[in-house]
């Protein structure tokens, strides 16, 4: 039986192992991904089993990691690179935005760069500065990149498989505070499309749309709202670029209300994009303006106050109440 209950990090580990087994061109690259198995142990044991030639400890230089991954991809390899923390991706941002994202288009389709950039992201683990950020909008804004984030172990396993198989570069955001959450993975299932949203909980009064670490919070909020007689639907977007607007639209046209939830700052965040698109598509179905719950226009705060910064259950429920009160 291929169904097992795994922590999200272990599901990623199994997915990488499968990718290395299936295709000799797949490489793992990053800082401390070898003997240590990565600071979150996502690559644990892989170097031991696949060798230093395929699971590569790199110099401590993020632009170098992504830049050489591009060169390896040009040579026919499929590198999966790990950025150690969200806040450390920026030295590689130039290579990702000016090179990785654009090479297919500027070569008129002749070059394909199947590179996966894995980034543990988000807060909630009591970390120091630069270890808790949610920079997904900075990548979703760039044409040529695909940006996804799993919320559970099954998606972690399958979405990473699909990202590795994609001929486009994929920025793979891993919800680090969910790494230890266990849920079922069926390694023989037939997965749905990488960029399709998934309805996690059905409801009739309001739609909550979230991704990554906030899906769990939204499910809890929907359960709490149900106790007060409110029927809240929860959609796991799974992909921030492209966004499955059709799924959100279909839900909103039934519920009439939408609240988008993410950890990233609300200003210019994916919630803004979803609000604008859904307002255009479903204007006459909306009973209330689309509301957003997310981070503030402030640097990610010190750990002792991060619970106030992060959109928790009460802030989501507050937005649900405000929407229903319209």
């Amino acid at each position, binding site marked *: 039986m291929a169904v097992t209950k795994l922590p999200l990090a272990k599901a990623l580990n199994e997915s990488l192992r499968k990718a290395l087994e299936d295709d000799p061109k797949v490489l793992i690259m990053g800082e401390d991904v070898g003997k240590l198995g990565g600071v979150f142990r996502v690559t644990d044991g892989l170097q031991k089993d696949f060798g230093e030639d395929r699971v590569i400890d790199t110099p401590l230089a993020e*632009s*170098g990691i992504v830049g050489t991954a591009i060169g390896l991809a*040009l040579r026919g*390899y499929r590198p999966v690179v790990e950025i150690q923390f969200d806040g450390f991706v920026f030295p590689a941002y*130039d290579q990702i935005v000016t090179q990785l994202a654009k090479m297919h288009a500027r070569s008129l389709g002749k070059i394909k760069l199947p590179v996966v950039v894995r980034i543990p992201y988000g807060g909630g683990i009591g970390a120091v500065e630069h270890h808790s950020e949610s920079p997904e909008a900075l990548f979703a804004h760039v044409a*040529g990149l695909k940006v996804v984030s799993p919320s559970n172990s099954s998606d972690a396993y399958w979405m990473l498989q699909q990202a590795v198989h*994609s001929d486009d570069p994929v920025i793979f955001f891993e919800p680090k505070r969910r790494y230890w959450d266990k849920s079922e993975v069926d390694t023989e299932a037939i997965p749905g499309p990488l*960029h399709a949203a998934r309805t996690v909980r059905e409801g009739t009064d309001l739609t909550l749309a979230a991704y990554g670490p906030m899906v769990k919070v939204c499910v809890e909020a929907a359960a709490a709202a149900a106790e007060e007689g409110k029927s809240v639907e929860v959609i796991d977007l799974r992909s921030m*670029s492209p966004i499955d607007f059709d799924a959100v639209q279909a839900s909103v046209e039934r519920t009439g209300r939408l609240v988008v939830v993410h950890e990233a700052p609300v200003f210019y965040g994916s919630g803004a994009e979803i609000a604008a698109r859904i307002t255009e598509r479903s204007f006459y179905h909306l009973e209330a303006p689309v509301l957003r719950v997310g981070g503030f226009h402030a640097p990610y705060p010190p750990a002792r106050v991060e619970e106030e910064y992060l959109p928790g259950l009460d802030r989501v429920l507050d937005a649900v109440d405000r929407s229903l009160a319209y």
Partner: protein
Amino acid sequence: MTVESTAARKPRRSGKRVSAATKPQSSEPQLVQLLSPEGERVEHPDHRIELTPEELLGLYRDMVLTRRFDAEATSLQRQGELGLWASLLGQEAAQIGSARALRDDDYVFPTYREHGVAWCRGVDPTNLLGMFRGVNHGGWDPSANNFHLYTIVIGSQTLHATGYAMGVAKDGADAAVIAYFGDGASSQGDVAEAFTFSAVYNAPVVFFCQNNQWAISEPTERQSRVPLYQRAQGYGFPGVRVDGNDVLACLAVTRWALERARRGEGPTLVEAFTYRMGAHTTSDDPTKYRHDDERAAWEAKDPIQRLHTLLQREGHADEAWFAALEEESDALAKRVRESVRAMPDPDPVSIFDNIYADGNSLVDEERAQFTAYQASFAEGGN
């Protein structure tokens, strides 16, 4: 003045002219030279080259044709046919010499000025002009000639070259990779990271730096306190300065560096000491920051003239041969001119092409909206 004392000088204040006389000259022992500016063969203890007359004539022809089509491109920009052109004038020997050292299975990562290298790789000159005309961002198939697209972000391609070379080593192939960049790029973090990665993985890559003395308006003194080739030492691989206006020395030194790479001896930094005779691009105005006498000093070291002198002295070519080459140059220029003028603008809807290899719902939606919007003009005029 020695190189070391030049390096130890305090950096000049910005705005002050740097004269050619303060730069290390060909008398420097570090500079590999096999053909003097006067067209005389020079002995070097480490680097020698033996070429047939046909090979010498081939190098000369490459340089002349490259210079001719480069000049034509500058004219085409002045005529409004190109939006911009980055001339390689003065750097023909560095480019032809290094590129003729390459094998077909080697791979080239150029900047946006490697027109002579492109020529040697068999990329048609008209293909280079598409991006400068604004009809594409690079119109050739990189894998057809193992010549990557021009990279405009300074230094980025040195990391791609390093990664590609890491892949070559993993494949067990004996090919080598060459990364072109300039003196300005030597300040970029990506170049430093490329040196680090290539060194620790012992990647088969040659870093070919054309030090043309100017990064737009900034002299090399703004990029480094030491001669650029000496940077390699700190990374643990050899660095060599070669007379970048000497096609024989550039060929010999690049061959040597490529052979090192093939033998598994890792990266090499070659600094080709040359001069950007023209403007940075057609949008630049060098009269704002440098003086004619510096250019004149380098004019006397012209890469084509010195080989011309050698060919005549050694009797490899007569006047008829030179005249025939002149005719071939004009024919090339005519072909380039005509094909550039005939280059059609792309279909606007092609903006949405090739953004994703696997397709994308947002791109499909925007393409459909844009197509419908455009069609609305054709339908009725209301």
